[in-house]
């Protein structure tokens, strides 16, 4: 088996099917809705925060298997993490996908499931699918763009 089939035969399929976390929160602090303009995938995300740390995350994902799998990793690993830690995990993931050397350890501690995306590295056109949930989460966490709910 080679090519894309190898990617789907690995852990990504199980990760995508895991459906970790709810689709909405009863009282979210922040929301974000992010699209991948090339394919129309969309992540609608809600957050509960305590200070700068995520306490709860809910996501509605309209996307491919890679996007779903990445969203499920977020649902597992983002609660308890700060914006800086999430950015560092995203940067490590991005560096891995680009074949560049990550500044920290790979996979980052607490984000070990990201290793499941290593087979995506050679499929450049799909990197955006994996990164979309991170973009939604970081947009929600950004004071400038995240939409606080009154």
């Amino acid at each position: 088996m080679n090519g894309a089939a190898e990617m789907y035969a690995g852990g990504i399929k199980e990760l995508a099917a895991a459906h970790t976390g709810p689709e909405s929160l009863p009282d979210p602090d922040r929301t974000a809705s992010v699209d991948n303009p090339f394919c129309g995938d969309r992540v609608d995300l809600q957050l509960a925060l305590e200070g700068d740390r995520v306490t709860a995350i809910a996501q509605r994902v309209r996307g491919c298997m890679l996007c779903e799998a990445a969203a499920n990793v977020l649902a597992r690993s983002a609660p308890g993490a700060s914006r800086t830690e999430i950015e560092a995990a995203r940067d490590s993931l991005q560096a891995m996908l680009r074949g560049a050397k990550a500044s920290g350890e790979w996979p980052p501690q607490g984000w070990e499931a990201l290793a499941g995306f290593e087979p995506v590295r050679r499929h450049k056109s799909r990197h955006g699918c994996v990164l979309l949930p991170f973009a939604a989460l970081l947009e929600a966490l950004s004071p400038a763009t995240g939409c606080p709910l009154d």
Partner: protein
Amino acid sequence: MSQSGTGQSGADLALPEADWSPASLRAQFPILHRQVNGHALHYLDNAATTFSPLRVQEAVAGFENHSRANVQRGMHQLGVEATDAFEAARGSAARYLNAASSEEIIFTSGTTFGVNLAAHCLGQLLRTGDEIVVSVAEHHSNFVPWQRLCERLGLQMKLIPVQASGSLDLDGLETLVTERCRLVAVSHVSNVTGSVTDLKTVSRVARRRGALLFVDGAQAAPHGPLDVQALDVDCYAFSSHKCYGPTGVGVLWVRDAVLQTLPPFLVGGGMIERVTCEGTRYLHGNRRFEAGTPPLVQAVGLGAALDWLMELPWPAIRRYELGLTTRLLQGLSAIGGLSLVGERQPQGRAPIFSFAIEGCHSHDVCQILDDYGVALRGGHHCAQPLMDSLGLTATSRASLAVFNTREDVEALLHALQRTVELLR
């Protein structure tokens, strides 16, 4: 594409049917002989971009190597030859569309530019309160320019809905197109479903209300010569890269009576009559809309592509294509959980097939098909309003060109079955 109601003429065919075969056509496309991921290439993404035959490549190379110069204003031999080649391409476009005159042909960078040009120019003739009617099935290129125009000028944009099949629902058109409607914009063929718009009905209603009819012909033009006069439309835009020509060029045909009323869009060299420090007087007709150096090489290539298309034996090609369509529809319907988006009958449609598979996202499907050398497109196909109307987020799309064969169709069906097994 079936001829009935499409305005596709198929007349004046130079190549005898007996001399035509898929193999003879394929020999003209060297790219078809390459391999992808260890498999023969089965290219079924022609609705996005198709390939150029050797004849087009030779025309481009010939122009580059022998006649490359600017057009209209060169006082030297190369300038004369370049102008002749460029204007010959304009003539080819006029013949392909059966335009009344090549003076009605404007070279653009593609369909998107053609729609934007028309929206900008026509927009200068519209006033707040005027209405524009567009269908929800449009490619974004024939939707967003009109939407933006309406936002900018305070016009009302009304939408032609679709049936469950994705075909336009024209039942309420008489009511939708009112006396205040100044323009109706629809595609000739859907880039998602392959359904053919009944342009004669749309034209009849538009004419009755005094509205102009703009047609996005990007997906119809690749399927044989057209007759814009018989279709009774006012503007018709298409792209070269879907018609076996080079990228970066397209055609906007505008009926002369409309063309003469339009103010300029882009301004600069090549479209003026006289410039003084006090003001500028613009050329009339098509040249008014070709500011700057036009895409010369690309236009020459497009002309060669259209000449080539006009020589194909379309009745034979359509019979062959109908066979492929019938087999493809039958094969797709046998795949469990697959829903075809669009009409299910093989006749009266363009060979564009979108489908969704339960539990399998189109990006994942297309990615795995690529392992088998099968090239499809997955996503919203730049038709998000249509996707929303149909309750879909994305589909996989196979689209045929004149060089596709039964082997391509069987390769798709085989790989699709394997893909579904892997993803489920």
